């Protein structure tokens, strides 16, 4: 009998409210190794909120989150070792240069050859000329590239990104898409929020559209999934996240609304 695959990331009944406003309502999500789940939706749909819950930057009002079978605790060293995160709360040391930031991360994670890894990633993100610059002098695009580099310069099993295409130029988005595809093919699990169609189309194996929509209604055809709909690139159409009608569709790999 084939061993059942355990999800790298699993959420159950995840709910988050701000006062009377429910942003996320009973979100169930499973992400396996080699999968890339894209969160899409309008502004305010709850994409960033969901990501913040997943990385422990915020606490859900209900529900559980598990990473590799262990409950998600933001302070857990094991989870920090496995989860690489690039969301909006990344900070930089004002007095450490670009390469020193990456060197610190690589060594903190115990890489055998941190110098080689850092050099390689610096070349990839095209920040070699800025190696000796302090973060305060970088452009917003360069800071974004540095932030992305922090995810690739250390070991990871799960990658969580919030709108990683922000501030990147066209070439940068292209590079990012290729890199994430390669990571996924190597068995990394990826969850990312994005407004960039090319990135979503290229990288995602599943798309979760958050915000609005009523489960069960027929939706007009379009280029992408409509609110309330999850589109899987492996022809698995499943239910979507939160909705306003009180219905609680679930998202699972097996497909079909429940």
């Amino acid at each position: 009998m084939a061993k059942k695959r355990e999800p790298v990331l699993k959420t159950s009944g995840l709910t988050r409210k701000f006062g009377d406003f429910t942003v996320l309502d009973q979100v169930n999500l499973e992400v396996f190794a080699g999968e890339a789940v894209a969160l899409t939706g309008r502004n305010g749909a709850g994409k960033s909120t969901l990501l913040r819950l997943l990385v422990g930057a915020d606490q859900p009002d209900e529900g559980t989150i598990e990473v590799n079978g262990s409950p998600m605790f933001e302070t857990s060293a094991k989870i920090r070792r496995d989860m690489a995160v690039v969301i909006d709360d990344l900070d930089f040391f004002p007095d450490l240069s670009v390469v020193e930031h990456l060197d610190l991360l690589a060594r903190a994670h115990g890489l055998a050859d941190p110098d080689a890894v850092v050099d390689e990633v610096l070349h990839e993100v095209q920040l070699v000329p800025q190696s000796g610059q302090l973060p305060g002098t970088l452009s917003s695009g360069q800071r974004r590239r540095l932030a992305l580099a922090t995810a690739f310069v250390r070991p990871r099993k799960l990658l969580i990104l919030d709108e990683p295409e922000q501030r990147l130029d066209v070439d940068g988005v292209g590079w990012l898409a290729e890199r994430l595809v390669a990571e996924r093919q190597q068995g990394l699990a990826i969850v990312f929020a994005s407004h960039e169609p090319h990135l979503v189309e290229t990288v995602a194996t599943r798309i979760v559209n958050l915000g609005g929509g009523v489960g069960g209604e027929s939706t007009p055809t379009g280029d992408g999934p409509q609110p309330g709909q999850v589109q899987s690139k492996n022809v698995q159409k499943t239910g979507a996240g939160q909705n306003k009608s009180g219905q609680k569709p679930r998202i699972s790999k097996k497909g079909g609304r429940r």
Partner: protein
Amino acid sequence: MSQTPQADRPQFHEGTGKPRASLEVNPDGVDESELLADIKHWRTGRATRSLGEALSRGYIVLFAMVMFGAMIANVIVTAQVSVSSCSEATCVSARTVLPWAAVAFAVAVALFMSRLFGPVVASAAEGFWLMDAPVRRGRLLGKRLYAVVIVVTLVGAALAALVTALSGASPAAIVMWTAASGLAAGASVAFAAAQQSNHDNRLVRVMAGLFAMVTLAAMLLVVAVAAEWVQPPAIEDKSFLIALIVATAGLVVGVLSLIIARVRLDRLRRQRLTSGGSLVSGLSGAMYALDLGLMNDILNERRFTEMGNVRVKTAAGVGLTTIIVRDVLRLVRSPQPLLLFVVSIVVPYVLDSLGLSAIAAPLSAIALMAAVLPLLSGLRVFSRSGGMARSLPFSPGQIKRASIALPAILCIIWAFAIFPAYLGFGGAVQRTIPEALVVSELVAAAGLLGAVRWTIAKPINFSAPMVATQAGAMPPGMITNLVRGFDIALLITVPLVFNLPWWVSLAIAVICGIVLLGSFNMAEMQHRAKQQQAEMERLKTGRGRYF
């Protein structure tokens, strides 16, 4: 002034055919004072009450200020009368040397602040809306320059008046040193303003450093006299003359620098003006929120953004060690915090020599806390937003402990350096060597933990429900946020002030250390408790888990 080219510009709007407004400029040029008058008119036109009306409504505050001011003045006068009759060597050295320290301190601080902010500043809005226009910047900013010089002169004078009065100087000496300090401070700001148009302000930085050294030397001399290593300089009778010379020099340098600064105002670049203005607005925003940590972050960020590039230093080690090594390399790159550290070593000796041994412990701890803060910049980044710490495969407690390893080592060295002061340097308090060592280590621990508390404390949460107070609604923790860090330093050292056994302070220090340097995360603990409670509820009702 040339006219805007009109040849290619359509004279009429397309569609409506209405004539376009002319872009011809006034051949007489711009009157900057009119511009300033317009801005003032627009601003004051929106005011709903005058300054007098506002003050009359706040008369209780005024009365309170007058009362407190009178009380403080009374204390100072009483202290002056009492100390002036003291003829011991320590008192003589204080009267002779401390005015020098006050003048040097005032000048050093004035130069430092001038280099940091300008001293002539313009807001970003002024930079965008006014500075790009063909106006003479000197006329726009002249009054601002004079105002800065006058304010600094008054503050410098007040500082020297306080120091000389408390050290028991004669009224004539107080007046002359007050004038000397004020004029010297004003002259230093005028000098910095004259240098502001230079791209390289190293001269101001060097002079600020020199005067800081003079301040330190003066404090050390007071200590040396108290320890009877040297005789007090026999210049007390010449104090008035020396003060007069300093005042005269300050006046001459100040006037000349002011003239040069005024002439050079027209050459000040917009970026040079508005960078200080942006800093002022950032700091004032942080000050409004009483977020001292944010103020420190803003200053740090600016300092290193100005630096721009560094020579890369590759760290060594893996795991937690690399954090410690990186802190060492950071200190090698910017060793200025070590200077502050050295200065803080002087404080217990100065306090002991001035007969303030009873409160030396808490004051020394606070001095050390101020010196350690610049060494905790790494911990600050790890704790303020969580993103960087989350990238590391360690618990928050491990990261905190690694981040304070280097400061802790320096604090241990500090403790050994200051323990003679707790032996009874000036003769006031006598302890055995082991006792003095223990007390000095406890003071060092208080300073270090106070600095840690200050660094990792969260900012005020303005979105939380407000608390009703006599002063109106306030967010919870607003006042306690101001004293964060100091609370820990005092908590550990106050038992020593009251001559309680040293182990009381030790126990408090250990508890503070466990709380501050552990992996406690209040939000996470509350969330776990909530989850457990929900689980209990589900088991009670037999509903099982979510699915």
